[in-house]
């Protein structure tokens, strides 16, 4: 007697996948589709009449100097903050990986920052970097007018970069440390016995072996710098002064939610999505070539 219950080969597959597919559809594709639809219409905030305008929203955004300024600001922000966050984390992880006394303590201390919510972090940095209080006030007393994030766009950009990098140093550190620890000790010991110094060992053994991690973090960091910077910008600079820190993601928020321009914001988020896709493809095609997977 046949006791096994049998299903058609793919019916069971579908059956198991349905809940997942439904979730993905409801929470990802449906809203994304909605955003595409909105970007092609003019939405009245309270609903009622929506006017089909085709690509007009994109045309008006791309012909707006403020929007190009916000793209430039985002790219500068992404480049510098990612570079800083990764470089500092790499150095710290390399140092912690060596068997120093108290390295456990370092690990905990360095991992902490990532656990702090962006608004709390931004509040803290707002106080730390205020021109009339704390450390920067001392600097300003020595060189009057040196630090003025309220009017100087470069200073404001520097403040959000510092805050963002500070948070991601913690995140990157976790991954770098794990990558370092995964390198077999014997390799390093052998190299040490051959007489190579710390720098040489790092350059020829450790660095090539952690390139997959570096690549992974590069993709994540750049993506996050486009999307996760919102809370920091909102609290520290609100996009100012004179739009100097009006990053793309913040502009979407302020146009969409504060300005009630849902269509313009939808079009901008689609452009942002495309930009991130392009950047990611670029990274996979050109940078990944230099990555050595074991």
């Amino acid at each position, binding site marked *: 007697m046949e006791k096994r219950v049998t299903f058609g080969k793919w019916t069971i597959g579908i059956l198991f996948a349905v809940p997942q597919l439904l979730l993905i559809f409801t929470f990802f594709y449906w809203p994304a589709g909605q955003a595409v639809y909105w970007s092609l219409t*003019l*939405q*009245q*905030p*309270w*609903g*009622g*009449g929506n*006017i089909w*305008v085709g690509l007009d929203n994109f045309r*008006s955004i791309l012909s*707006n100097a*403020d929007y190009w300024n916000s793209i430039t600001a985002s790219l500068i922000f992404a480049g510098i903050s990612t570079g800083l966050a990764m470089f500092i984390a790499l150095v710290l992880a390399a140092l912690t990986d060596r068997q120093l006394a108290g390295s456990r303590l370092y690990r905990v201390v360095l991992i902490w920052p990532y656990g702090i919510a962006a608004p709390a972090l931004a509040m803290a940095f*707002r*106080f730390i970097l*205020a*021109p*009339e*209080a704390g450390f920067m006030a001392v600097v300003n007393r020595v060189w009057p007018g040196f630090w003025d*994030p*309220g*009017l*100087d*766009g470069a200073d404001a950009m520097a403040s959000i970069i510092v805050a963002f990098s500070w948070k991601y140093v913690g995140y990157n550190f976790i991954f770098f440390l794990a990558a370092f620890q995964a390198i077999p000790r014997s390799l390093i010991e052998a190299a040490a016995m051959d007489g190579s110094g710390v720098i040489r060992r790092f350059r020829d053994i450790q660095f090539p072996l952690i390139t997959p991690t570096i690549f992974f973090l590069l993709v994540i960091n750049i993506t996050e710098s486009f999307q996760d910077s919102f809370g920091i910008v909102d609290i*520290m*600079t*609100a996009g*100012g*002064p*004179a*739009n100097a820190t009006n990053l793309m993601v913040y502009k979407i928020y*302020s*146009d969409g*939610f*504060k*300005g*009630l*321009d849902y*269509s*313009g914001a939808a079009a901008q988020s689609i452009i942002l999505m495309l930009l991130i896709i392009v950047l990611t493809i670029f990274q996979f095609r050109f940078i990944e070539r230099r990555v050595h997977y074991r």
Partner: protein
Amino acid sequence: MTMIKRGLAALAAGALSTALAMPAFAEPVKFDFWFGLSGDLARVVDTLCKNFNESQKDYEVVCTSQGNYDATLQNTIAAFRAGKQPAVVQVYDVGTATMMLSGAYKPADKLMEENGYKIDYADYFPGIARYYATSKGEMLSFPFNSSTALMYWNKDAFAKIGKTEAPKTWEDVGADLKAMKEAGYECPMAINISANESWQLMEQFSALHNQPIATKSNGYDGLDARLEVNKTKFVQYVTDLKKWYDAGLIKIKSKDLGQDMVQAFASGTCQVILTSVGDHGTVGKTQKEGMNWDVAELPVYAGTERKNSLVGGASLWVLSGKSDAEYKGAAAFLNFIHDPKTALFWSTNTGYIPVTKSGFDYMKSSGFYDKAPYKGREVAIASLTASEPTEITRGVRLGNFTQIRAEFGTQMQAIFANKVSVQEGLDTLVKNGDAILDRFQQTYPGKTLP
């Protein structure tokens, strides 16, 4: 089986007890009120709601703070699109044009009439009422928390330069600031130049000088209004502010930089600020020990015939799509807020001004304005009622005005950082602001403001 039986029995018992209870205690009709105030002010609103609920037993208002004005409007729109909107919502002044075109409200005057309340609309201060009324004068929403901008001045600092009165003209302000600087004051005057200060710097200034912000009577006469602040007296004002800033007579103070204007004034760091009468209470509570200060109407340029200042704050809108019972409750609530006694409670605890003449008279007669912490707030009424509102001073009715204010902040920052000249900055403000207005007009094709 037993489970189901037990469940059914419980259900039946429940139904029975509700049925029995119904005639004995008629539940009050509940309706929602969403508002945008937070902190101290939210607690006052909560007390107001409690007082209303205790004043009668037919209705119960459920008051919920949404954090701030922006969030209140966003959440209400989201709720409205989902069919779960509150009955009453507080919307800030600049959201008025957006609300008027939304088609999502029940006109407040109709609501009151349908429910048998007689409101004397002439009792409202005209500068306040016309902000929220149609061009024909029908009140679509009721003013709730109202304020206007005043000049706060430090009497001690002015005494040092031999002045016992607040400057009345901008020419005098310039001279006084210079004298204070020479007398050793680091920060004679504080301003901020973010989107929010568009209210006192651009909007109030323009009203007092009877200068338009936009064509078509500041937008009252049509959605095709366009900005024109790059060719009014406002250009002179920004030029002077910038000149005084460059000379060190004005400092920029903002929360982002560690200390906002009101704190800078209350701590005695800065000697003059321009801000809402709503901050009167805060300055009183946080001022430096023994500091002498007062408020005065905003100055005007010499030779100007002073007009009324603009109302700021928010009004209460009743949204469409609610039940008749809820509308009855909402009407009772609006009537309660309209009461002069409520006005006294509200103004005492917040710093906002009464919105009706009878409310103001009631407060005056109860001696409110003679008492120390509240003395000076009557200046706000004097400023609001300085003249009969003109086509220009009855208010600003521009779509997406929040975005225009943001553009104001951006251009002022560019001007003060020497990135552009005053004229270039204001030209860009007009150009970008017009694009925003154009977009609003496209969103509502063929529609006109009520």
